[in-house]
């Protein structure tokens, strides 16, 4: 177990360096002059540009620039924007909101998706099964930004049940509706995954044994069937957290939430490469760590799985 974790952590290093370098390269290649418009109506003085280029290592070759960035990053320093604000501060202002939104969405898709999947997977063909299949098809087919505008217009503007936009501090309650919108597509996938997984395991020998030895229904389903059907669902949910945070950009735009989406767009427009890189680097870390956690959870769910 310990050796497995160590090997997995070692494997993360090249992936982490590769991804961050890729993002660094792309951001570095963003077209346009980063100092355009930074000094008001006139072009920036030569001396200012020279000082800034020196400060941000912009005259070094790309690899050295990236090396210096990585070195700072490993010490927990995300760098500064051109105006001297710490990128760490910007990120720590924007990230909590997005994490909250993504967690709400994850909760929605886990709860609704798993329950819908269990209900249809157990019953087999019938009205409920068709209802869930059709509604998941529709959820998958309608992109998040359309769902978002529909929810905002119908529930926010016409019925007045929710606030159409979220206030600056974005409390948990306010984020319920945007979280639901963000979860909509993944919810459908969770429901389908759970349904197939349950339907496949329903006829397994261990379920028949559990029924035969007189276990009550809730124990057969809740312990024997669910635990054995959980692996694909857990894999999906685990890797989905990073994707939800990255995909939150659309939902944040619609409901006017001050998360990482707005930060990325502003930074790209202002050529603030360090901010964009910092935001993406953190998302990559979330993704890699969640993947590792999911792999470790397999052994808990299915003790037959051994790490070696």
């Amino acid at each position, binding site marked *: 177990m310990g050796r497995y974790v160590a090997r997995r952590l070692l*494997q993360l290093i*090249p*992936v*982490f360096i*590769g*991804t961050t370098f*890729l*993002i660094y390269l*792309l*951001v570095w*290649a*963003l*077209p*346009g002059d980063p100092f355009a418009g930074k000094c008001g109506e006139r072009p920036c003085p030569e001396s200012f540009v020279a000082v800034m280029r020196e400060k941000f290592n912009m005259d070094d070759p790309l690899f050295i620039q990236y090396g210096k960035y990585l070195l700072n990053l490993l010490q927990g320093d995300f760098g500064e924007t051109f105006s001297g604000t710490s990128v760490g501060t910007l990120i720590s202002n924007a990230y909590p909101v997005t994490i909250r939104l993504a967690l709400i969405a994850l909760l929605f898709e886990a709860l609704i998706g798993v329950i819908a999947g269990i209900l249809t997977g157990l019953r087999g063909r019938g009205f409920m099964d068709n209802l869930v299949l059709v509604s998941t*098809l*529709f959820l*998958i*087919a*309608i*992109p*998040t*930004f*359309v769902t978002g*505008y529909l929810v905002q*217009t119908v529930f926010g*503007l016409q019925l007045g049940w929710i606030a159409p936009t979220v206030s600056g501090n974005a409390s948990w309650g306010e984020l319920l509706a945007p979280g639901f919108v963000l979860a909509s*597509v*993944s919810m459908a*996938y969770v429901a389908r*995954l759970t349904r197939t997984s349950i339907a*496949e395991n329903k006829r397994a020998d261990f379920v028949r044994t559990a029924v035969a030895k007189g276990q009550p229904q809730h124990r057969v389903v809740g312990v024997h069937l669910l635990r054995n059907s959980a692996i*694909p669902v857990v*894999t*999906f949910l685990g*890797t*989905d957290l*990073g*994707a*939800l*945070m*990255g*995909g939150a*950009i*659309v939902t944040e*735009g*619609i409901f006017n939430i001050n998360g990482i989406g707005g930060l*990325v*767009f502003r930074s*790209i427009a202002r050529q603030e490469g360090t901010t*964009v890189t910092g*935001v*993406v680097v953190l*998302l*990559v870390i979330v*993704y*890699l760590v969640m993947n590792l956690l999911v792999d470790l959870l397999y052994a808990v769910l299915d003790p037959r799985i051994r790490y070696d």
Partner: protein
Amino acid sequence: MTDPTAAASAGKMETRAQEEITAEGHGARPGGGADDGKQRSLWGDAWVSLRRRPIFIISAVIILFLTVMALFPGLFTSVDPTKADLSLARQTPSADAWFGYDQQGRDIYARVIHGVRASLVVGVLATLGTVLLGSLVGLFAGFYGGWLDAILSRFADVFFGLPFVLGAIVILSTFNPPGTPYGPVRIIFQVIFSIVVLSWPVTMRIMRSAALTAKQQDYVKAARALGASPTRIIFRHLLPNTLAPVLVYGSIALGTYIALEATLSFLGVGLRTPVVSWGVMISDAKELLRIAPHMLLFPAGALAVTVLAFVMLGDAVRDALDPKMR
């Protein structure tokens, strides 16, 4: 927004792939239909069960209809989708213009019809690119194994770890910044490129695990014993037997790529004005949602129907190719 599905279905399909290949490895198997007693290949079998599915027929008809619309938009409308008449701005649907007019007085019906082309081109070419690139890399990684596999797999992980929407925004802001005077073809290809770059690791993983299983099979050993070259083994023996799981993934992904293109266009980094696209139309409509909801309703509806058709087709193909469902 489509990446998570990829991650999960990839894992699921990897196991499916192995089952399928071991089934295939024993050569021809008793015909699934059993009505005529003949032996059929996996594909013949799939085709027979597909033709019986109403969901397949419905989605195939919708897709055929959309294809005709993309090839010959003139059959459905004679109005120029870019002709703007400000005096007609935001008029609601009427007998003259079935879907009404947009902010600049352009006919929304004509724009919806002409928008099919961009969506289908992006969806089909992005799927083709993902399947080709991912399959090739996955085949080589799975067949040769060893250090080549390790390098290719880590390389794929690098792209797999990038969050999809965010990654596409950064790529497209670099290559396709707003305001550059690129023509429609170049803009469309940049969008396709960014989708392929971010999604090929999924097909690569599916193909790699399929190839890993297939190369243990007797027919590969036999071919090797007979002195077949690696290239011949890969393309004549491995490829035909590992293609099914990747194609199943591709058919489901096509719909989600179309939705993704619309999302990117909606965010302002994807397709833009010389191209007529549903994403751009929805993006234009969002500010006027309260005054002119029809501007959002029709392109969003068209988008949903298109994605729905491809996702249903993918579902049907998966069920037909999945040995467990038989």
